């Protein structure tokens, strides 16, 4: 008797070179944009200043966008109220900073950074709790219905924004950064604001931490598997709802953190800032590909850099540069650069 097994060894076909380049293309976009920026600006010092501020802006947008994209990927929930967490985070954080005047007013790096961290933690706690409440009250009753989700979360955004007016008053709040974070350092003839440098470092650290959590821990594995195929994960016995609530809270807290950082960057906060940032966040999430954290990271850097370069080269065009970027990316890849969620 011969065995029925066919006489060949299975082989895994490797992707062809163009396919592999195609997959890596989005990663190349950021360096390409930086080089293009250098060529069109010409002066090294302005280019360096603009690049750092573009990266800083991109990092902050990424922090705000990461939660939104994961929430969408995991549960197919699109939260238009995400911007409210940005505003609330900024107001709570900045109030904390103003209360810690004795720490922020002295020229000590340790105390200054401690004050900023305290403010960030306060903001994240409040927005995390708010996110939990938002999920329970606003989002939970409308699972599975996109139309209602959009309507209800927009309503939630308006209500929270108006409540900020009630609590903190209708006027914008101006603030100054802590002593040691004011001013700029000079590097290769370019003046680089200290705070922007800090924002870049902080954002990068956060991205690396998030990647580690998503790629190296069990909870990260469940989240990624949930994004890919939620039903299968539930069939294996995991309560995806709990994971989702956790991600929603974490995403809201990150939005709050982004709000504090953005407030310190702009040195002014308004109740409408979250709504304004949401526009950039949506652009980032769309061009990154819904559900993809890496895509959102690349998208955020592209948006930040492009906005800064264009604002320098042709100020009037800066307003529509992001829309143009989004259009170009969608023409190239209609699902976004790195789509994770299959079109449902």
């Amino acid at each position, binding site marked *: 008797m011969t065995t029925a097994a066919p006489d060949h060894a299975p082989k895994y076909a490797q992707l062809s070179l163009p396919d592999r380049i195609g997959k890596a293309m989005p990663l190349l976009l950021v360096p390409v944009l930086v080089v293009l920026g250098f060529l069109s600006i010409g002066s090294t010092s302005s280019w360096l200043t603009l690049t750092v501020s573009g990266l800083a802006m991109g990092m902050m947008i990424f922090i705000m966008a990461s939660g939104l994209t994961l929430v969408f990927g995991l549960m197919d929930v699109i939260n238009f109220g995400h911007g409210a967490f940005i505003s609330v985070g900024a107001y709570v954080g900045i109030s904390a900073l103003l209360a810690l005047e004795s720490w922020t007013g002295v020229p000590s790096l340790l105390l200054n950074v401690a004050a900023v961290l305290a403010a960030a933690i306060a903001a994240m706690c409040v927005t995390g709790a708010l996110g939990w409440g938002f999920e329970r009250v606003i989002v939970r009753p409308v699972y599975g219905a996109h139309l209602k989700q959009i309507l209800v979360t927009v309503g*939630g955004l*308006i209500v929270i924004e108006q409540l900020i007016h*009630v609590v903190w008053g209708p006027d914008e709040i101006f603030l100054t950064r802590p002593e040691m974070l004011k001013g700029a350092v000079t590097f290769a003839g370019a003046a680089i604001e200290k705070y922007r440098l800090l924002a870049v470092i902080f954002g990068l650290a956060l991205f690396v931490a998030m990647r580690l959590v998503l790629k190296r821990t069990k909870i990260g594995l469940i989240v990624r598997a949930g994004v890919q195929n939620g039903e299968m994960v539930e069939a294996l016995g995991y309560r995806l709802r709990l994971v989702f609530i956790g991600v929603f809270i974490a995403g809201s807290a990150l939005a709050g953190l982004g709000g504090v950082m953005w407030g310190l960057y702009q040195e002014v906060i308004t109740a409408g800032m979250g709504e304004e940032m949401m526009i950039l966040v*949506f652009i980032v*999430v769309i061009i990154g590909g819904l559900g993809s954290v890496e895509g959102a990271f690349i998208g955020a850097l592209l948006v930040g850099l492009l906005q800064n370069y264009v604002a320098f080269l042709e100020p009037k065009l800066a*307003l529509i540069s992001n829309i143009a970027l989004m259009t170009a990316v969608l023409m190239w890849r209609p699902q976004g650069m790195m789509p994770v969620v299959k079109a449902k």
Partner: protein
Amino acid sequence: MLMNLISGDRPRSLVLTILLLGILAALALAPFLFPGVRSLETAARICIFIVLVASYDLLLGYSGIVSFAHTMFFGLGAYGVALASTHMGRGFDALIVGTLAGAFAAAILALLIGLFSLRVRAIFFAMITLAVASAVAVLVSQLSGFTGGEDGLNYSIPRELTPAFKLGKLFGVTINGKLLNYYLVFFASLALFLLMLRIVNSPFGRVLKAIRENDFRAEAIGYRVVLYRTLATCLSAAVAALAGSLFAIWLRYVGPATTLSFEIMLDILLMVVIGGMGTMYGAVIGTTIFVLAQNYLQNLMGVAAGATEGLPLIPQLLDPDRWLLWLGVLFILSVYFFPTGIVGRLRAEN
């Protein structure tokens, strides 16, 4: 004849029929029933917003697409008339050219946005329209040399449509250009509303409803879903632009705050939801109730805030500036508890 006019779409509820007839009569005779500048302003606003809300309902209620760019299309129509009147001078030709150009531009822009977002998934559309609309709003307020910036544009319309043109008196009411202007707005709105009614009750409208209920199945039956959705978007944008043109002709002023702001978008959403999504009559009921409430309730809030002065927090909550807060709460509650709106409720009673 009558059934032809309303395209066979009966109100299907006695109360609703009475309400609709009442609103129609009140609007048709508004200058004679409620003399006074303010009530005429309110009546004209109701007429124009009925068209705007009905055109939005074509998207939201009939096609199941959420758009945040409806005020952008509305603004395009308004700015079309304003720019044409500014550059071509006073005259009916400027009004017609501006109106047509605005509607055409709106339809083209809607086509572009639709082609980009609707072919992938409908949810993209909501986000992309939000981004584009806000970019346009910023652009309009920045390009002050062209659009007048935040201040907006003042321009003159033909003399026959202004209060300076006097014809005499009828039933104790002065017949002047303002009155003619009102009737221009009224009849144009009525015609546009009947047109919308015709569209949603045509085979095209029925396919839209099928797509709303189950796009996958509609595609399987052989309808090009993307094509239908894009067409609905363009139609809705063009009608919104026409409503914007009427608004510009009536107000003789356009500015970002009155035509492009996100607040107006929110008003439109609320009017559709209150009236009832997916019925054109919902637009009539929702708009009338909302505009009346907006004009008269805000005063009441001011009174209430004054009366509760001294109590903690309550005066701030009742401040007329916090009008949006209550709108938001009302909005969420109506989406949860009255997803079919007033019209749906009235019809369900039968």
